[in-house]
């Protein structure tokens, strides 16, 4: 059975994250969770698109959005996706150190993204866009804020893993955990690409 593919192998298992039944369950279950998250963000995006014209005399998208700042944020998040991919490739190579290194890179980039987002919100608030200013503002903060909360959770989650497994080497227990965390991170990125397009680009351009 799967569990017997042990650490005693001469060679590394090609996919340590799915070498055990537990790992395969985690992998599949997490993907399904992401399927649900798709609908969750779909609902928020739909709400935003339905309400984005409802500015009620408050500022609207075109008055507010710093497209260049958001563009930089997008680049940062895309790059953090790449670093996490590199981390997993190194995990499969058996390099614990490089895994940790690339993952810390992801965390730092994620934190930078979050910092910019907080600055962004602060700035919009200064310009008169409170959460309750209009239906548009509520929907905007709800959508981007939920995404931001996901980023925050991702940062905390990955950091926890990195600290917990700083000395453990790559094991059949932590490989699935790193893998799911990275999947989660990619998903956040996917959602952001979509938010960048429909909220920011369409907000300025359409």
């Amino acid at each position: 059975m799967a569990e017997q593919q042990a650490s005693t192998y001469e060679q590394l298992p090609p996919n340590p994250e799915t070498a055990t039944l537990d790992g395969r369950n985690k992998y599949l279950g997490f993907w399904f969770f992401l399927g649900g998250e798709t609908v969750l963000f779909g609902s928020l995006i739909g709400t935003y698109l339905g309400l984005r014209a409802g500015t009620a005399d408050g500022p609207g998208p075109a008055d507010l959005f710093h497209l260049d700042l958001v563009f930089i944020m997008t680049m940062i998040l895309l790059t953090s996706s790449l670093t996490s991919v590199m981390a997993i490739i190194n995990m499969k190579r058996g390099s614990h150190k490089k895994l940790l290194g690339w993952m810390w890179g992801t965390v730092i980039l994620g934190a930078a993204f979050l910092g910019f987002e907080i600055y962004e919100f602060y700035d919009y608030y200064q310009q008169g866009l409170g959460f309750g200013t209009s239906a548009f503002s509520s929907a905007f903060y709800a959508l981007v804020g939920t995404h931001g909360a996901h980023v925050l959770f991702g940062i905390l989650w990955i950091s926890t893993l990195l600290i917990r497994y700083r000395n453990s080497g790559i094991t059949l227990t932590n490989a699935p955990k790193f893998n799911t965390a990275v999947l989660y991170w990619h998903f956040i990125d996917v959602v952001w690409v979509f938010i960048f397009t429909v909220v920011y680009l369409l907000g300025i351009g359409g």
Partner: protein
Amino acid sequence: MSTAQTGSKNVIWDWLTTVDHKKIGILYLAGGAFFFVLGGIEAILMRIQLMFPEFTFLGAQTFNELLTMHGTTMIFLAAMPLLFGFMNFIIPLQIGARDVAFPFLNALGFWLFLFGGLLLNVSWFTGGAPDAGWTAYVPLSSESAGQGLDYYLLGLQVSGLGTLIGGINFLVTVINMRAPGMSMMRMPLFTWSSFVASMLILFAFPALTIGLLLLMLERLFGGQFFAVDFGGNVIIWQHLFWIFGHPEVYILILPAFGIFSEVIPTFAKKRLFGYSAMVFATLIIGFLGFMVWAHHMFTVGMGPVANAIFAVATMAIAVPTGIKIFNWLLTLWGGRIRFTTANLWALGFIPSFVMGGVTGVMLAVSAANYQFHDTYFVVAHFHYVIIGGVVFGLFAGAYFWWPKMFGYRLNETMGKWFFWLFLIGFHLTFFVQHFLGLLGMQRRVASYLEGQGFGDMNFVSTMGAFLMSIAFIIFLISIFTSKKNTENVNDPWDGRSLEWTTTSPPLHYNYPQTPLVRGLDAFWLEKYEGDGRMKAAEPLGDIHMPNPTILPIVISLGLTIASFGFIYLVYWLIFVGLGITFGAMFIRSVKEDHGHHIPVDEIKRDLEEG
């Protein structure tokens, strides 16, 4: 690293910390039954109030709270958990697994449901339950005074999270945990339909989560999603609610269909007619279940094109449902039908549900729906499908699997009394309501005026409700008086699927050796074409099982505390609650728990005793 933690000192502690799918299944059943009784009492109170025109048994406000809580309780806290109970107990047995894919999450799902349900009901004691209907349409709900609606929002959010977790767990269990030889197309129909229902849960509940989140932000934090004066739109709530709400009724009915697809072949002693057509129809129903939500909103002003499309899509659901009905009838055709109580419920289901189904098609006729919508016709329709389908399914499942779960058979005589009284009461209650609706009685009314001609039929309806209650009390009594029927419980009905190959109740690791499945209706195959025993897929050896843990309760408790913080906007309480939850999650993540092994000697000992 494996720590052996077998046997616990304390029974209560044992149940609080269990991760065994069978115990969690029983917990779900107990919790669901509690809320079922609660919802039933709410229903009876409403029926008493409606017995006479302009009756003043209850105030209008109380009535609105009751109707809201009855709907919410029955859907979220009774029907779904009861089905989850059966799914938890039976699915791993049916696919030849020792446990579910995520035992820890399974326990977490249950405790979240329970705490969410209790939280919702706390509202009765804190100044008023939610009063805007189970659909909580804005702006009635966003402007409702008091904390009732906040309890609704937080309670459903917490229990909904539990349901979502449960759904994912079942999906992965079915995909990854099947015994050797148990291909997807050899799975019993109950497992199949629960699998599809879990898919619906996965995609439906996030929409509810967002709906509830938005309404919470609106009520508590000054959001303006539904505030027309600030550019908001009230129909967004209705879409989000029904994108969840319509699949929800299929989440309820599909597992019930699955139960009937187990019960009917067993008691007709015949293989399920058109197995693959049944699977296919289940998938189609699941798919179409997502395409039709707006038929709840025909009168809201979406426009004729939208109405026409959703009307036609809704009608289409009748086709796969019809396929199922005819397949059941043809399963019975040529069989040797035994009228046990379990089968009576299944047989009672067919005509009752078909009657609910045809009114469903009538409701799908959008132009005619302008007359039906929001009247007692609708009330009659959904009670016909939900009681005639889901509740009958639950009772059928209870009588069918009771010996497996508890090691004794429920008394058949009392069972038959229960069935007939309930069936008559049910039709008495709801049949007349079709006509009440057509004659002009709108739904969710706290009373009706004298001289509008509703009195007699409402009286009949209330009498029927009393009859149903009496019948249910007989059932409750029979649970406690049947305990001595312990002979022939392992395979009392000449069962067809794997769960009947285990002892009753099953050992806590289900199967000493994982069975080898050689075809559909695996056990029947071995009984009638083999030597009557399942072949083993593995040698007898140590069995790995997960450890019990208290963390699921701690996580759920934390969320409940945080919910009170949200309801009364006490920020430190929110932080304390979330701190407990995330702290417990952190512990779970950091402190690795790899379960324990049951030594082969102990298994041999169990086998000798069994």
